[in-house]
């Protein structure tokens, strides 16, 4: 098993996440896709630590931070989503056009 294997898996996972974020109409879908991207990054971090810097634990530590942030993001995101849903009665992003000038 080489580092390249893990990196490949991580990049594929990341791209799937990107694809999801770009295409899902449901806002929860987008959130899920973002989680996938976070995980891809985490795989990378863990793999780099294992293969390049086995003496320390910086990769795992950073991954933990990412998890923390991701958790916070999901929690707040879902809360916001609920709030928006209550107001607009829809979960589809194309209907959210408050940004329109």
């Amino acid at each position, binding site marked *: *098993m*080489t*580092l*390249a*294997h*893990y*990196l*490949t*898996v991580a*990049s*594929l*996972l*990341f*791209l*799937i996440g*990107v*694809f999801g974020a*770009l*295409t*899902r*109409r*449901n806002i*929860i*879908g987008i959130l*899920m*896709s973002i*989680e*996938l991207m976070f*995980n891809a990054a*985490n*795989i990378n971090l*863990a*793999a780099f*630590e*294992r*293969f390049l810097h*086995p003496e*320390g*634990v910086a*990769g*795992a*530590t950073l*991954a*933990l*931070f990412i*998890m*923390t*942030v*991701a*958790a*916070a*993001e*999901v*929690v*707040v995101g*879902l*809360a916001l*989503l*609920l709030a928006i*849903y209550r107001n607009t009665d829809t979960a589809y992003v194309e209907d959210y056009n408050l940004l329109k000038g």
Partner: protein
Amino acid sequence: MIEHIVFYSLSTVVLVAAVCVVTMRNTVHSSLFLGLSLAGVAGLFAALGADFLFAAQVMVYVSGIAVLIMFSVMLLGRASDLHLRQVNEQWMAAVLICTVSSAGLLKIARAYCGTLAPSAPTPDTRAIGRLFMGEWLLPFELASLVLTAALLGAVFFSRSEASR
């Protein structure tokens, strides 16, 4: 050999589940596959010898975030959603983007073709603990602050109009 089998099977699970996440029409199914995919990632962590990360992944993501999302989906979901397209019109462009990007990303990956693990994995939980309580204390505390803020924010936003 066993290492290979573990890696490939876990990768397959992760990727297939991820593809299902982004393509499933039923959002509930999507969220279930998300849990599966995250569990796969946890497996990969284990294969990499990051034991603490594995544990954290299972606890935070698989049992925390994935479940939370599942609940939200069920809260927001409607029966009519099942008949609607869940993917918008720009999916082809997205495919294109992903293809193009993959070229770049895979190129990086190729650069590490020959990189093998220098030594057997060692447990790192103790080291992480020392790091958090020592050198990285400040970021650690900041992270806790972020989580508290997130908690408060979540409570604030999700209160119903009536209770305000």
